C-alpha cells in the first residue's frame, strides 16, 4: 500500500511541479529526521516508521509535505492544492495525528516582515486543510521567517525553495 502511494505521489508532484510558476528545480529533501531511513519498499519488511510519525508522513508525502510560494506571496495555487489534498488524505487516514505547519521565507527580506510572511503562509496552508475537513484543533502553525533555509545559496532558485510551508507531524 505504501509503495503505491509513494509512487503515485512522486509522479503527480513531478507532473504538477512542471506547471508551477517558479518550480523548485529539485524536490527538497525531507526537512526532518534525515537520519531515519525511509520506509523500505520490501513487502516482507514489517519494521519501519510508525503511521503518524514524521518519518512515515514524510515518506508517504514524498515531497507533498511542502508547498512553495512566489516572492512576498502566500496564495495557494493548483500545485499547492494538490499537495495539501495529499496531506489531508493522510490526516484523514490517521485521525489521531496532529500536524504543525511551518511557514518560511527566503533571505531576501527584512527579518520582522519575514516572520509575518511565514505566519501568512503557514496559515494559508492551514486554512486550506481546514477547508478540506481537517479539524482546526489538529493543526498548529509556526513561522520561522528567514531563519531556517533548506537551500543556503543566494540565488533565485534557492530562494524559491526556501519560500515554503512545510507540514510535519506532531509526535
Amino acid at each position: 500500500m505504501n509503495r503505491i502511494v509513494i509512487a503515485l505521489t512522486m509522479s503527480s508532484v513531478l507532473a504538477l511541479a512542471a506547471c508551477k510558476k517558479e518550480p523548485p528545480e529539485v524536490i527538497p529533501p525531507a526537512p526532518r529526521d534525515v537520519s531515519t531511513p525511509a520506509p523500505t519498499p520490501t513487502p516482507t519488511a514489517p519494521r519501519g516508521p510508525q503511521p503518524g510519525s514524521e518519518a512515515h508522513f514524510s515518506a508517504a508525502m514524498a515531497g507533498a509535505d511542502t508547498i512553495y510560494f512566489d516572492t512576498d506571496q502566500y496564495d495557494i495555487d493548483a500545485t499547492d492544492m494538490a499537495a495539501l489534498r495529499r496531506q489531508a488524505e493522510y490526516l484523514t487516514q490517521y485521525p489521531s495525528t496532529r500536524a504543525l505547519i511551518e511557514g518560511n521565507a527566503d533571505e531576501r527580506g527584512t527579518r520582522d516582515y519575514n516572520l509575518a510572511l511565514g505566519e501568512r503562509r503557514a496559515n494559508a496552508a492551514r486554512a486550506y486543510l481546514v477547508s478540506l475537513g481537517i479539524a482546526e484543533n489538529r493543526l498548529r502553525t509556526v513561522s520561522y521567517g528567514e531563519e531556517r533555509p533548506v537551500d543556503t545559496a543566494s540565488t533565485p532558485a534557492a530562494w524559491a525553495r526556501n519560500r515554503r510551508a512545510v507540514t510535519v507531524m506532531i509526535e
Partner: protein
Amino acid sequence: MTLKSAYLAFVAIAGLAAAAPVAAQSSPSVLDPAGIGDPAVDAAAGAEVDDDGGITVTVTADNWQDTGIAIPAFATNRDQPTPANSAGTTALGQELARVVFNDLRNNGLFRPVGPDALPRPSYEQITAPAFATWQGRSAEMLVQGFVRAGSDGRLTVGCYLYDVALQSELAREGWVVLPSEWRRAAHKCADLVYSRLSGESPFFDSRIAYIAETGPKDNRIKRLAVMDSDGANHRFITNGRSTALTPRYSPDYGKIAYLSYTDGNPRIYVYDLETRNQVLVTESTNPTFAPRWSPDGKWILYSMAIGGNTDIYRVSASGGGTPIRLTDSPAIDVGGSYSPDGSQIVFESDRSGVQQCYVMNADGSNQRRISFNSGRCATPEWSPRGDQIAFTRIAGDFNIAVMTPSGGNVRVLTHGWQDEAPTWAPNGRIIQFFRSERGSGDSSIWQVDLTGDNLRRLQTPVGASDPAWGPVLP
C-alpha cells in the same frame, strides 16, 4: 561652553558613581590634580575666548573634521594598583587615553594621535600643558587627563580639552567612577571633546544590544548579546539553545525586549538585566515579534499575528496591562518606532501591495503613507533628534537610507548587497545596521554617519546582526 557650565556638568555627572554620594564629588578641587589653577580664573579666561571670537563655539564641519588632536596618556598623582588595572593607575592612564583616541578616530571625524605615539605629560602638566611641545607636533587640539584612585577604591578621572594655538582651555569635566566603570569615564571624555568641537550631542557613553551569530547558514546559532558602543564589555546573555532575534534595550537600560523561540514559537520576552528573569510581553498563544520601547519606557510596541494577519499593538511595559491594537488592516503591519516626543509612530505595512512606511498617531489614528517612489520601505526608525527617519530601502539590493518624517529628501547612505535594520546613535548623527554577505549569509554590524562618507565595520567576537543602540547611559 564656559567652564562654569562645565563645572555644573561635572557635579551632575558625578552621580554616575551610583553607589553612594561622596562629598568630594561636588568639590571643584576634584578637577584640579595639582592643587593649582583657579577654576574661577580659568572660567573667566574661557569665557573671554568665547566672547572675543577667538574660537567659535561650534566649529563648522569644514574645519573640525580634519582637526589634529593629540591625546597623550592620562597622568596619575600616585601610581597604585586598582581593580581597573592590575598594573596600576599609570597603566590605566594609558588605557583611558587609548579609549578616547579610539572613540574619536573610529568615527572618522577627527585625526587624533593616541598615547602610544606621544610623550607622556606629568601630573602637574595636566592643568598647565607644555603648549610649545604640542605646537611642535602640529597638534591643533590637546586632550589631557588624569586618574586618581581614591581610598574607597573609586577612581576620579579628569578630562581637559585645550586649543594649542590659542593656548587656552576649551572644556573640562571630571567623573568619579567605580573601577569596573573606568571605560565610561573615557567615553565621557571623548563625548566632551566630540560635543565641544562638533556642536553635536554626545553618544559614546552608550551600549548596544545585538544578536551574535555562529555556525553554518542552515543551522545558525543566534544569541542575545550586549556590548559598549565601542565593542568593549561584551557579554552573551542567552546560551544559543533557542534562536534569539531583534533585541531592544529599554531606555533606562534595565531590560531588554527580544524575540526568542524558547518554547518553539516566536514570542517576545522582556528580560530583566538585574534579576535575569524574563516574562512574556503579553500572555497570548499568538506569535509576537518586532518589540520596540516608547521613549519614556512606559510602553512596548509589538507585532502579533492572529490567524496569519499581523498587526501592531502596544502594551504597558510594567506588565499585566491589556494590549491596545493600533492597526487593523488585513495586510502585514509590523515594526514601529516612536517619534522622540512619543506622539507618533512610524511603521511598515504592505497594505499597498508591497512594504512601505507609514506614520500614525501614538493611539493608532491618522495612518498615512510617507514613502513613495523609492523602492520598498522597511524597518523605519525615528531619529532621537526627530528630524530624520532611517529605513531599509529595498530596490534590488537592500540599502540604508534616511528621509524626513514626511517622506521627503530620501538619501541612500550605504550600498551593500543586503544592508538592513538601521538603529540610531543617541545623538541622531550615526546609524548602525547589519550587513549580510551574499552566499555565506555571514552578518556583521556596520555604522555610517549621515553624510554617508564615514562607513566602518564594528569588531565583534563572532557574526553580528540586529543591532539596537541604546540612549546615553543614565
